Every structure is written in structure tokens, then in C-alpha cells.
């Protein structure tokens, strides 16, 4: 029972970073990938069909954190209060601006929000790991930027795609450098094995991204960067053994929640997959 909930929390968190990661990347890049207002609108609209579905993985993860891991929720959020507040403020600005952008004025909260969220998650992970926060505050946005650029390479056509591809290629090396530096300057952790495995897989995926981009296998490149965005979170939380039985709710609560989770998750996966499938037909 406990194992099921650890897997579920990891899955929801992974889903959030894999999906919302490219939202923030696109939010940071769309003004550069699109040269005029019409093109920028097109770039953003390549992301927005998935937007509500992407961001809501975080809400679900937070709900599971509260319901099934009440000890961790209080401990983690109070201990990392400032980075969480920063992330949330950025998230509110970004979420609202993407949905309401009726004028280029909205790009201030849109780009600012995306940057705040990306840097904020970096700082937060750096704090939990005990590594240099500045490194993580730069590194995580680099991963999101790469993920966003690969997404745009996959979804766009014409000159905008060329620009997105150039940006994606230029970002692969900095991303590898970040992973290497994160390992080299990492603090003392409880389970160092996680860090080594996570870093090795991340580097392999980034090399894979490079070759997939070169050979035009855009969907494969997207899967590589999506997984790369997930790795830091799972690695850091695993390395510090943040999730233990002591922080979890007791069996009756978990049992009651399990039925709900097992019923809902397949539905969400089915309907989100339907959105992707439909967008393929529409493109």
C-alpha cells in the first residue's frame, strides 16, 4: 500500500515536470522563435491545447502530497518556504498570462512567470540536495529551455522550426555541463547511488537528444528531453530519501484514497492522450 502511493506521487511529479517543463520552455522562448506577433501567436498556440492538462499534474501531486504524505507536506513546504512562495507567485502569473494574453503587454507576466517558476524549481531542488543553489537555479531553466525548444522543433513548421532547432542544438551542451557540475559539486547525500545513476541516465538521454535532432526524429528527441526534465526531481528526492514511511498517512486513509486514485488515473491518461492524438490530426 505504501509503495503504491510512493509510486503515485513520483508519477504525478514526473508527469508535471515532463509536461509543464515544455510549457515554461516555450514561455521563455516564444518571443525569440516567433519574429512577429502573428508568428508568436502560432508558437504559443502550439502549446496551449495541452496547457491546462499539463499544469494540473502539479495540483494532483500537491493533493496526493497532502492526503497521503501529510508529514512530508508540512515539513517540506515549511522548510523550503521561500522557494515555494517564489514558484507559486511565478506560476500564478504564468498560468494567468498564457490564458489571457490578449495583448503583448501580457508577455511581461508570461515570460517573467516562466522564468520565476523555472529558477524557483531549480533553487528548491538545490536546497533539498544541499548543492550550490545558483548552479541549480541556472541548470533547471536550461533543461526546460531545451525541452521547450525540442517541443517547438517537433510541432512547428517553416522558419520558426529552424530557429527552434538551432536553439535546441545550442542548449544540449550546456545541459550536459549542468548535469556534470551537479554531480561534481553535489552536497553530501544519504543515498549517493541515486545521484550517479540519475546523472548517467541524464547524460545518455542528452546525447540521444542530440542524435535524434540531427536525424529529424523529433518525437524521440521530445521523449528524451521530457525524461531529462523528470530526472533531477526524482534523483534529488531519492538521494536525500525524503519520502519515508514516517511521513505517510496511516493505512485507513491510504486505503480510502487508493480506490479514487485507481479510478481516476486511467481516465486522466486516456483523455490527455486523446488531446495529443487529436492535435496530431489537426496539425
Amino acid at each position, binding site marked *: 500500500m505504501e509503495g503504491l502511493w510512493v509510486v503515485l506521487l513520483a508519477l504525478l511529479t514526473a508527469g508535471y515536470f515532463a509536461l509543464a517543463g515544455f510549457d515554461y520552455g516555450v514561455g521563455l522562448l516564444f518571443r525569440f522563435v516567433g519574429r512577429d506577433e502573428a508568428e508568436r501567436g502560432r508558437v504559443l498556440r502550439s502549446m496551449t491545447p495541452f496547457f491546462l492538462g499539463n499544469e494540473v499534474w502539479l495540483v494532483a501531486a500537491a*493533493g496526493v502530497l497532502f492526503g497521503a504524505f501529510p508529514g512530508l507536506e508540512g515539513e517540506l513546504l515549511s522548510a523550503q518556504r521561500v522557494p515555494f512562495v517564489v514558484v507559486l507567485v511565478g506560476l500564478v502569473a504564468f498560468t494567468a498570462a498564457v490564458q489571457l494574453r490578449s495583448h503583448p503587454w501580457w508577455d511581461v507576466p508570461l515570460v517573467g512567470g516562466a522564468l520565476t517558476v523555472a529558477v524557483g524549481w531549480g533553487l528548491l531542488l538545490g536546497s533539498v540536495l544541499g548543492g550550490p543553489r545558483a548552479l541549480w537555479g541556472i541548470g533547471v531553466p536550461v533543461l526546460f529551455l531545451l525541452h521547450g525548444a525540442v517541443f517547438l522543433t517537433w510541432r512547428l513548421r517553416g522558419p520558426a522550426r529552424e530557429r527552434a532547432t538551432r536553439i535546441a542544438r545550442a542548449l544540449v551542451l550546456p545541459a550536459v555541463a549542468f548535469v556534470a557540475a551537479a554531480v561534481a559539486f553535489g552536497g553530501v547525500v544519504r543515498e549517493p547511488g541515486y545521484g550517479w545513476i540519475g546523472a548517467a541516465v541524464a547524460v545518455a538521454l542528452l546525447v540521444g537528444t542530440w542524435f535524434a535532432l540531427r536525424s529529424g526524429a523529433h518525437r524521440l528527441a521530445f521523449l528524451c528531453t521530457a525524461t531529462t526534465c523528470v530526472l533531477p526531481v526524482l534523483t534529488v528526492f531519492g538521494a536525500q530519501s525524503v519520502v519515508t514511511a514516517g511521513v505517510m*498517512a496511516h493505512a*485507513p486513509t491510504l486505503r480510502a484514497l487508493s480506490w479514487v486514485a485507481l479510478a481516476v488515473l486511467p481516465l486522466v491518461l486516456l483523455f490527455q492522450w486523446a488531446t495529443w492524438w487529436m492535435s496530431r490530426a489537426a496539425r
Partner: protein
Amino acid sequence: MDALGLARLQFAVTTSFHFLFVLLTLGLVTLVAIMQTRGAVTGNPVHARMTRFWGRLYVVNYALGIATGIVMEFQFGLNWSGLSHYAGDVFGAPLAVETLVAFFLESTFLGLWIFGWDRLGRWVHLALIWLVALTAYASALWIMVANAFLQHPVGHEERDGVLRLVDFPALLTNPLFTTAVWHVVLAALTVGGVFVTGVSAYHFIKRTTEVDFFRRSLRLGVVTTAVVTPLLVGAGFAQFPALMAWQPTKTADAGVGGAVGLGFMIQIGMVLLLVSWLTVPLLLRDLVVRMRFPLYLMVIGIPLPFIAAIGGWLYRELGRQPWLVYGLLRTEDAMSDVSRDGMLFSFIAFTAVFAVLAVADWVLIARLARRGPVEHAEPVSPLVPAL
């Protein structure tokens, strides 16, 4: 003000903003679903156009509902870690169900509804808006389950200094849940009815050429309000026996703020009940449009149900003090270990962002509402290119 006062104020501000958007979301999605159903059944294009116009306003309103909702979710852990430590096993359960069943599914369905416009079959697309509505109501239901537990904790036992869940169904039969949930749902429907009435009335004041479009909208709004308000008022007063039984000192504990909120809510409820029933006969032969002065009252009336809802909510929450979990956990004992400066920082940051974005959102809603049902309009936003 000390850290505790700031933490409470931050919670009140966040919840109030969230509540304002959620009320209209719930009310409007129901009416949009009704419009779309009539369109699908009758095939009359005016219903499809109504669905599109009111659906746009609904989606733009939803944007801040989700944004403030995310902060609501995290705020418990940020500022009130004592609550999750002591009562997380019980209080967290309905909250987790809400995020999974309602929020998670609702956003997924809504994304598909927006994106599926003109792409999905008529009946599939219709089913989606009803699924959005259904999950939105499920959201309200589970939030009220969680809130009722704070008002009147049931279904738990205390072991080793923390609460454990022993009876999950008891949360759903909590007398302070079963009486309040109807009141909240009916309040949301009233907000939707009054909003649709008011916006339609505005277009008649401006002598719109879309007479059929706004006549149908106005009628739907007035009839909804007239049908719902008696039940709303009834469900409101029906709560007092349960409140007197379980929180006998509520009105005294609520203080001046709570009492004023309660008074405003009751008066506004009565006025809406009376006025909506007086308006129903005037719908005959468009008397209400020809008389003109009721139209102005309808526009002025738009904020009233919002004010009433905030008033009623203040009474419910202030009347719970000094308890966070009634009789078990004091509010002051539940606060996270945060300095006054830390609390001030988050309070100012969230309040400022909410205020700016809420005003921007309302301006956008007002502009779209004034523009009316234009065909081939520019995209409202990147999210709603189809609408």
C-alpha cells in the same frame, strides 16, 4: 499585525479571490451546458452561438480560478503545517480526492472541450461540457466535505497525539456538510443566473440588434435565478439547527465582521428572491425590455450575489474561531514556524499578484461581454483560439 494575523489574512484573501472565480465558474458552466444541450437537440444555431459567447466568458474566468486554486492547495503546507501534522490523515483525504477526481479531471476535460471545438462530433463535445460541469460540482462537494470537517470533526480518533481516519463515510454524512453543500451549489447557480441576466440586460440597454440571442439569454438568467433563489434561501436557513447543535456560540465567535457578513448575505438573498420573481411575469412580451428601468437594476445587480457569498463565507469561517479544527486544534497552534517578515513577504507577494491579475481578468471579461457575440472575432487568447 503579528505573524498569526498575517497568516489568517493571507488565507482569507486567497480564499476570497478563489471563491469569486469559482462561483462564476460553477454557475456559468451549468448554463453553458444547458445552452449547448439545447443547441445539440434542436439544431437551432442561436444556441450554438450562445454557447460560444458565454463559453468564452466562462473560460476566461476559469483562468484565475485555476491560478488561485494552486495557491490554495499549497497554502496549507506553507502556513498551516500544524494542520497537516495533526489532522492530515483525515482532512487531507477529501482534499486529495478533490484534486484527483475534480481538479485533475476537470482541467483535462475542459482542455479537450476547448480544443475539440469544431473538431469533435456534436454529442461527444456535448458530453465533455457536462463532464466539466460534473467534475466542477464534485470539486465543490469535496471541498465542502473538507471544510465541514474543520467545522465539526467526525470520523476520526486521536492516537499518539494525531488524528486518524476511522470512518470515511462519516465525513460525507457530516451534518455541517450535508446542509451547507446545497447552499453553496445553489449560490453558484444564482451567481451564474444573475451574471447572464445582467450582461444580457446591458445589451438591451445598448439597443442590441441581437434581440433573439439576448432575449433567450435573459430569460435563461431570470428563470434560473427565480427557480434557484427560494431553494438557496431555504437551504441557508436550514443550516441553523445543525449550527446551533454543533457550534452554539458561532454568531458570538464570528464577531462584528461575521455578523455583518451574515446580515448582508441574508438581505441580498431576500432581495434577489423577490426581484427575480417580480421579473418573471415581465418576461411576457418582453415587457422587461420595454420598461427599460429593470434593465439598469439587472446590471447593477451583478456584484450582489458575489458580495453575499463572501459575507456568508466570512460568517462560516470566523464563527469557527478560535479553532482551526473545531474543539480540537486551535488556529494559533496550527501555524507553521514562520517569522513575521516571512509571512509579510508571502502575504504581500500573493495579494499583489492576485489583485493585479484579478482586475486584468475582470477587465477582459467586461470587454468580451460588451463586445457581444461577434462572428470571426480575433482569438480571445492563445488558449481559446477556437472559441
